[in-house]
Every structure is written in C-alpha cells, then in structure tokens.
C-alpha cells in the first residue's frame, strides 16, 4: 500500500483539528471508522488519502443513549452492535434489520454507522477509476453504458444509487444528522444532509471539507409504531440492494395513521415516496392496499436502458413491507 500516516483522534473536535493541520500541510485526509471500504479505495487509488484520522479512538462515540427526546446513536457504533441492540430491535426494528443486512459478519463487526451512511457509491465506473462526476470529472459513464444497477429516481447528471442500507431506515424514522466540523457542530435533517446530483454531482451529502458525521438522533417514536427493512439482492448475501425499502407505520389495529416509505438501491439518495405515504394514511392494511401502494411507488420512475427490472422489484418490496406490518 502507498505511504500513510495514521493519527488516532481522542475526540471529534481533535479529529477535525488534526485534519485541518494535515490539509494545511498539503496532504489528502480521510476520516476512518471501521476503515474497511476506505482501505479498499486507497489500495485501488480511488481515494487519495495520505493521512488517515482514526476515529475508533474517540471516547464515547460508540454508545446508544436515550432521553425524553429520543435516541442518540453514536457514529462509531458497529453495525453488528446496532443489529443486536435490544432497544433498537424492539423500537427501531427497520434500523436493526438494515444494519444486519449489510455485507458479511466480518464487515459488520468493524463497519460503523457513520461510515455506512457516508460511504462512497459502488458504481462500477467510479470504483474502477473512471474520471466520472464522483471522481471529480464531468461525465456519468452509466448513461450510455452499463446501467443495470443505476438510478430509476432522482438521476442526472450522475446516476449512482446511494449504497447505504441503514440510511433509508434512519430517514424513515425522521433522523437528525449531527455533524462536527471546523466551525463546531450542526444538526441536519435528511433533506439537508443528503444531496442529489443535480445540486452537487460529486458528493452524496452536504458534509463540507473537514466535517464528519458524529452521531444520529432519532426523535421519540409514537406508540403502536412498527417498522421493517426489506432488501432484494441479486444473490442471497454479501451485496448491495437491488432494491430496499424501509417502512415505518403508526397504526391502530390495521388502520394506518401515518407511514413513511424510503427506498434504497434506486436513487442517488435515500428516496422517500411521498405518494405512497399519502396513499397509506387512513387506509386499512390489506392485500389490495399493499398491491396498489406497490404500483404507486414506481409511478414516477424513469428507468435507464438496462435497469427496468428495478420497477417490479420496487413494487414487490413495497407490497411485502406493508403486508409484513399488518396487525396480528
């Protein structure tokens, strides 16, 4: 591997300052949680880091804390810890299921929540060194190329799909993203945190240079709220979602009071389908409702030449998710 300098950060502000110093010295800097994907990108040459700021040494960044306002998930919590936490399994089920669906046990044991949410796209052009928008270039090679795993919503000028399973589950629970940077801390909602390529084709979120995602806050969840994350892959394990759907439904019996439905694997950001959410409000969960919701989920899809298969997959995933949240 290329020459690297590792700096162990004692706090998030320490990490931010270390990054500023290294950048001022002309070095490329990367923050590292689990580091699995980062090391891969460095080995491949798709991340130019000279200096790695190791965040595993940040104290108290790996905890789950509750108060009257909700739950705060430390950015450095491992996906395996998130997937096994009794409170998360019970009250934030979709988040636990999404975390459990990522990669392999070996990856989940080190991969962090913040790292999963901010990892770079897995588009095969970007990952193989093409000078595309994501690499700072001015072209998306998927448009006229191999676009079987690219966006059916929100694409243009880049058509990547957001790689995170956990992010749509967080968005479905109205998560707030806590960011630490040179100017201190700020908290963003999902619409502020995730960025479509029409706004910035190079990055997937609004983290500025030198900023990092330090924690996720989930507001209190109402009683009788149920959630699920359904993931369809092109093999049974160890890959990204062809289509995923995080669904949170608050209901009385089978009568839906409100619902959030957020897709993964189909858009450059976690993709909320408000048409489905509006449709579900006030309806009974049954086969007819679920089927119609599935159809509605793709009514505004704009498939590319080779990713039309994602439309029926999306409909099926949404239908299954809703039915799985029926009472009794």
């Amino acid at each position, binding site marked *: *591997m*290329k*020459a*690297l*300098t*590792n700096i*162990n950060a004692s706090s998030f502000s320490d990490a931010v300052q270390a990054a500023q110093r290294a950048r001022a010295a002309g070095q490329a800097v990367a923050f*590292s949680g689990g*580091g*699995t*994907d980062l*090391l*891969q990108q460095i*080995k491949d040459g798709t991340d130019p880091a000279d200096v*790695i700021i*190791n965040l*595993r040494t940040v104290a108290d960044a790996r905890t789950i804390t509750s108060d009257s306002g909700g739950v705060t998930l430390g950015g450095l919590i491992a996906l*395996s810890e998130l997937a096994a936490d009794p409170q998360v399994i019970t009250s934030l089920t979709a988040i636990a299921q999404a975390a459990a669906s990522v*990669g*392999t*046990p*070996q*990856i989940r*044991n*080190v991969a962090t929540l913040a790292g999963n949410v901010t990892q770079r796209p897995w588009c095969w052009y970007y990952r193989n060194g093409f000078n595309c928008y994501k690499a700072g270039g001015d072209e998306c090679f998927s448009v006229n190329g191999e676009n079987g795993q690219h966006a059916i919503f929100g694409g243009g000028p880049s058509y990547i799909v957001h790689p995170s399973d956990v992010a749509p589950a967080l968005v479905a629970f109205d998560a707030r993203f806590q960011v630490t940077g040179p100017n201190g801390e700020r908290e963003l909602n999902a619409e502020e945190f995730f960025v479509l390529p029409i706004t910035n084709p190079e990055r997937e979120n609004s983290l500025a240079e030198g900023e990092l995602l330090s924690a996720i806050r989930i507001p209190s969840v109402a009683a009788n709220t149920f959630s699920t994350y359904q993931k369809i892959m092109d093999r*049974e*394990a*160890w890959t990204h979602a062809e289509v995923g759907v995080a669904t949170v439904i608050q209901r009385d019996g089978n009568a839906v009071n409100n619902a959030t439905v957020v897709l993964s694997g189909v858009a450059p950001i976690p993709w909320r389908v408000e048409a489905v959410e509006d449709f579900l409000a006030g309806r009974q969960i049954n086969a007819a409702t679920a089927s119609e919701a599935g159809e509605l989920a793709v009514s505004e899809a704009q498939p590319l030449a080779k990713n039309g298969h994602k439309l029926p997959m999306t409909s099926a995933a949404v239908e299954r998710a809703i039915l799985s949240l029926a009472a009794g």
Partner: protein
Amino acid sequence: MRDKSKPGPSETDSSVNYLDPKAQSRRDFLEGTGAAVVATAAASSLGVGVASAQESSRSARSAISLTVNGVDHSLEVDDRWTLVEVLRDQLDLTGTKIGCNRSECGACTVLMNGQPVYSCSQLAVWADGADVRTVEGLALNGQLSPLQQAFVDNNGPQCGFCTPGQLMTATALLQDNPSPTAAEVQSALVGNLCRCSNYNAIVEAVVAAGDQGGAA
C-alpha cells in the same frame, strides 16, 4: 531468509533439519528462492531505482502492542501495514492467508477481541491493544480443536487456502451458538468464500463440531 529465532508456526521447529532437502518445507524453499531473486535484482542496474522508490514512499511508523494467541508483542509497524501483513511478515504466523486482499473472500479472517474480522482490511495500528487469535491459536498442546478435527473428519479443506478463515469464523460462531443448525452455519459463514466450492463439507464439519461440544 526467515529469522528462525522468531516465534512462529510449528514448521520452524528446531527438530526439522533444514539442510536435508527432503525435510525442507515448501515455504522455506519458496522463501529461499525469493531472496535469491531479490538479491539478483538489487545487484542489477535496476537496483538504484528500486531503492529510491522505496525511500520516497516511506510511511510513518507507530509503536503498538498486540496480544496474539495469548502472547504479548510490542511492535513498531509501518502505519500502512495491514494486520495480516504484520501477522505473516513480522510474527511469522503464516497460517492466516491473503486471498483477495479486499474484504471479499475471508481467507484473512482472524478473531479480534473475540469477533471475526478481515485482517487484510485493518491497519495494524488500528489493532493497537487488541487481543488477536489466529488459526495457529486453535490447537492446544498439540491437540487439534474439536472444530479442526471435525474439518479433518468431514473433508472440510480441499485446496485448504480458505480453511484458516473458515475455522476462525466458525470458532466465533460456536462460541456464541454451540450447536448451530446448517442454516445458521451458512449464515455465519457467508463472508468466507471457498473457490473449490466445498461448502457442503464445510457446513457439515461445523455442524458436526457443534454436535461434539463446540469450538473450544
């Protein structure tokens, strides 16, 4: 050539006569050949270029401590070295394999603080203070672990390259779940590929080890 005084796997046992070609291991032969090739290159006109390239890419170094298979080590490592590189190249624990070197195949799986991780995708500096267990740490007093014995009895290894990683992941599984079903074994081992495709025998071996009382 390897420093025979370092702690290492059983093949460095001093009872082996390294002067007897028939007693020499495949690894020692390959290492010896490799050293000869390097020596030739260094003596050629290419030598100067190679040396300066190494100079310009010098990495920062850090002092770390690792406990590996119960033995404490204080080491100075290049920041760029991965955990598997330190295990194999510094500690001579070559049981852990480098397969894909990109978190995909699982041949490099070791237990870090009891949990299976890909040692190819961990910098050694990140493992500072960790308790690491490799395949060399499974047998006790020359006695294979029940899981290792089950791999032998059920023909778990074919070419054997993935076996150390399979054993480590399965060891962690059996510690959490001493009698797993075949489906639970398949689920736990999804991150360990076998390119001989000997999956059925591997799953049978882990299930059999569970039936016989687990990993320990």
